């Protein structure tokens, strides 16, 4: 594990811990539904505007991670209210994601395509992590080929180790019970 949570009460603000608790609630919801327990919330101006949790077993689609679920909610919602692509991009660039486990390489890439402002995560993801563990997609923006700068990906702020032990113990619970369909999602161990 990259970071430990022993002094989390001191290291992280109450606000950050509060949002992570909501992400953990989502992870518990996943666990109750026999899914790998990873959950997230997206926050704009201090308000939770979307939540997501793993759905890989139910959908038999191993890409339906918590982050993708939450992003989909906002994309549909914002388009319904008539926002243009530029306006949606603007809104995402003011949003933070709180997720119980370090985003995998796929989700980290998706978050940089979306252009999220910041990611706060719980435990590290030693097998698939895209925010420092395996690749560092949060800090490697690429702007190749086109001069307007919107072709590649956008970097985002990233901070890990928030309530990591809670996130890990949920994952332990899950694997002790046995994974019913065996679709592993973000399994970090």
């Amino acid at each position, binding site marked *: 594990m990259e970071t430990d949570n022993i002094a989390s009460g001191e290291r992280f603000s109450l606000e950050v811990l509060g949002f992570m608790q909501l992400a953990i609630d989502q992870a518990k919801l996943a666990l109750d539904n026999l899914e790998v327990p990873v959950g997230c919330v997206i926050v704009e101006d201090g308000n939770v505007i979307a939540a997501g949790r793993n759905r890989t077993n139910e959908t038999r*689609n191993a890409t339906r991670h918590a982050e993708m679920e939450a992003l989909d909610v906002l*994309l549909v919602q914002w388009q319904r209210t008539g926002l243009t692509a530029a306006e949606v991009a603007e809104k995402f660039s003011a949003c933070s994601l709180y997720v119980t486990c370090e985003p995998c390489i*796929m989700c980290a*890439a998706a978050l940089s395509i979306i*252009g999220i402002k910041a990611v706060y995560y719980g435990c590290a993801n030693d097998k698939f992590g895209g925010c420092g563990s395996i690749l560092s997609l949060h800090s490697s923006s690429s702007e190749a080929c086109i001069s307007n700068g919107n072709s590649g990906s956008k970097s985002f702020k990233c901070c890990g180790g928030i309530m990591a032990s809670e996130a890990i113990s949920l994952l332990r619970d899950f694997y002790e019970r046995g994974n019913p369909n065996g679709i592993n999602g973000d399994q970090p161990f």
Partner: protein
Amino acid sequence: MSSENDDAWPIVHVPGRPPVPPEQQLTVNVVAAQIEQPKLTNTIIRRLSQIAPLEDLHHVKRVKKNCLEGGKIQLSVILCLAPENGDFDGIPCDVKDVIGSYQLSPFVAKVCKYAALSKEEWVEQCKLWPTSYHQPTYNISGITGFSEEDSQSIVSFMKYALELSKSHGNVVVNAAAIVDPLSNQVIAKACDEVCSWQTPKTEVGAECSSSTKSSPEMTGCIEHESCLQRCSSGGPQQVETSISCLHPRWWVDEQTHRISSFWHPLRHAAIVAIESSAARDRRLFPDVRYRDEATREECILSPAKSQAKRQKTDGTDVDNDDKNYASHGNGDLSSKPYLCTGNDIYLVWEPCTMCAMALVHQRVRRVFYAFPNPSAGALGSIHRLQGEKSLNHHYAVFRVLVPQDILNKAKTSITGS
């Protein structure tokens, strides 16, 4: 490549790390020692493998055998990795004990850092210190070459994907086809749905089932390659930027969205194809536990998606095989597929990082692409996910090269000469 066969579409393996000349392979330093009493070799090795296993050097043999003049054999053993500063004081205590108790004289040796990808590399490696050379341990055919029949089938599926990417009229998009190589059938197909989240207007023709299909019109790849050439020479034009995996952030500037159609920055062709194969999986092998919940959620969250899905289901070409599968698969849970295990995916362009990792998650067996993605490709261009050791699944990656004479013709017709 072969001049006698102008129709050849060479299929090239894209290895998990950049190829290097055999004599320029990366090495690491280890501490080794000669074993003066061969009888002790097994005891020493057993002890060392407990206290100093060579975690990342499984391809390196622990013992090196030298035949000296007169038929005498000299054995050397790797004790441990060399300490970072090169100072023998940094050797772990347990290993120091071994050195002491057998009175070994440690020296530094070089071994190759990565397992050999080819026989040529292996021969060079063994000049430093012996390694083992295995055909790839995962059961993926093709790395050592394809049979004539397999090649034909691969090329015809790639042509199918090229046709698919033309089905958006003037807009060039990436296209993906997921194939079950056992039945030789396309089980899911998709194009980018970044700017219009709906099914393509023009349907691709008959179901592609391998070698019997005659060579389709080549205008598709001509367009692709010429737009790729323009892109790499720096001329930004709408037609090139519309390929999602090449320019993942392009959605921000896209102006042509109509209010009526939904768009989605993450609906790259590979992601949509995975979604479609998962939907097929749920349809053919329904799981009562989730059925009601899934339907409800889909309607609440994304009416556009379920609408698109209905259209897809009404279409006839993708799921012709569904009935057969269903009758075989009914009530037989053992035949229920696990994600895309055993399936291949054909992509016109090398996937971006998001798509490449999605294909790892979905357990695809082989990835074939026609054109590299120099700005954002994750299977050879910018990253090589197929070589990331820590991932729990690895697919094999191949590039299918569009024949040079076709590309030359394309160039000529574009410049008008």
